[in-house]
């Protein structure tokens, strides 16, 4: 019997993020730097949404419900049955936090970057010196490899679950449902309008960044 574990906002977030990261790589590699910048802004919007959804969203999306300290991670590694909630395990939480943080760093660097030719720039580039925008781009290029390493580990973990534990995580991220062990706490979904509010807030933040982060006057 399969039970809901990932709500619709989380699944949309996951697959839009996946698609946009791929598109970001492709667009900058094949000389569409303008699209690359907009893709980064779309990713920023998703990240802000995810952050808010991590506080106000469904139970499996809330950071408080799955981010745990080292002791809980070790306990989980010794005995996986010690963790009884649907969604991310304490070990998986490390991966989630690392991926979200790494993507946030990458977007942050991109916002302050210019291309080597001086033809394109991130929306916040004019807030710093020209040399700083070049440095930001250098780190933006290097940090991609950090992101790539985390993505490889993420896919590795999914393959491990698929072939060693016979658990299809990819299909559960599509359907939102997964067979749970008896006694597992089910997901408590959030109201749909909370997602709308989080998304509206995310758009507002992205718009403010696109405008070059002007001072906010009440």
């Amino acid at each position, binding site marked *: 019997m399969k039970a809901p574990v990932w709500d619709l906002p989380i699944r949309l977030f996951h697959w839009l993020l996946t698609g946009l990261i791929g598109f970001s790589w492709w667009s900058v590699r094949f000389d569409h730097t303008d699209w690359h910048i907009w893709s980064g802004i779309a990713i920023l919007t998703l990240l802000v949404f995810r952050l808010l959804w991590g506080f106000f969203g469904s139970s499996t999306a809330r950071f408080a419900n799955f981010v745990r300290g080292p002791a809980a991670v070790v306990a989980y590694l010794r005995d996986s049955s010690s963790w009884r909630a649907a969604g991310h395990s304490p070990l998986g939480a490390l991966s989630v936090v690392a991926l979200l943080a790494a993507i946030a760093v990458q977007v942050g660097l991109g916002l302050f970057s210019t291309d080597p030719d*001086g033809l394109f720039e991130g929306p916040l580039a004019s807030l710093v010196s020209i040399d700083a925008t070049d440095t930001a781009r250098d780190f933006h290029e290097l940090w991609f490899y950090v992101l790539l390493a985390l993505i490889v580990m993420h896919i590795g973990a999914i393959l491990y679950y698929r072939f060693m534990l016979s658990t299809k995580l990819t299909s559960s991220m599509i359907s939102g449902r997964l067979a749970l062990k008896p006694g597992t706490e089910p997901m408590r979904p959030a109201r749909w309008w909370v997602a709308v509010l989080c998304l509206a807030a995310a758009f507002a933040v992205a718009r403010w960044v696109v405008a070059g982060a002007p001072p906010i006057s009440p």
Partner: protein
Amino acid sequence: MRNALLAATVAAVMLAGCQQAADNPAANADTPTGQVLPIRDNAAVLVRAPATKAAALKLMHDRHESMEQIGKAMKVAGRELKASAPNLAAVRASAATIASLAPKVPSWFPPGTGPDVGKTMAKPEIWQKPADFAARTKSFQQAALAFNAAAQGTDLTTIKAKFGDMAKTCKGCHDPYRTEHKK
């Protein structure tokens, strides 16, 4: 050490070159805004390959430095033109730098300075389609001179338009003839 010295000398010579251009914007001041200045024919300089590998590598290194210099001037001008009150002196200095380097671009790509010789982002297609490459560098040259001419005036709309036109000619050559990563 020798390389560093060479690079410093080359940089100094180039800086001197653009200083000259920057000091002398009046030369173009009487050119009507937007009019394209006469262009020397650079077709001849494209053909001669460097005599030695060392000379080729030096040329490639200098080419990279000069391209970066153009990029830097683009960033300065672009930033000023986006500002609410652009510093036109900075725009003029950048325009002069670019206009002084643009006519030299074809001479930076003689045969024997491609990726088979050393580390470069230049694609082999440059030497496979010399006519197209020459046409594109010429477009850049014309656009750079037009931008420089416009920058002598104070009409921001025209200056911005000519800057945008020039930016397109950078991309027009980089997209087909430059790789994203150094090999």
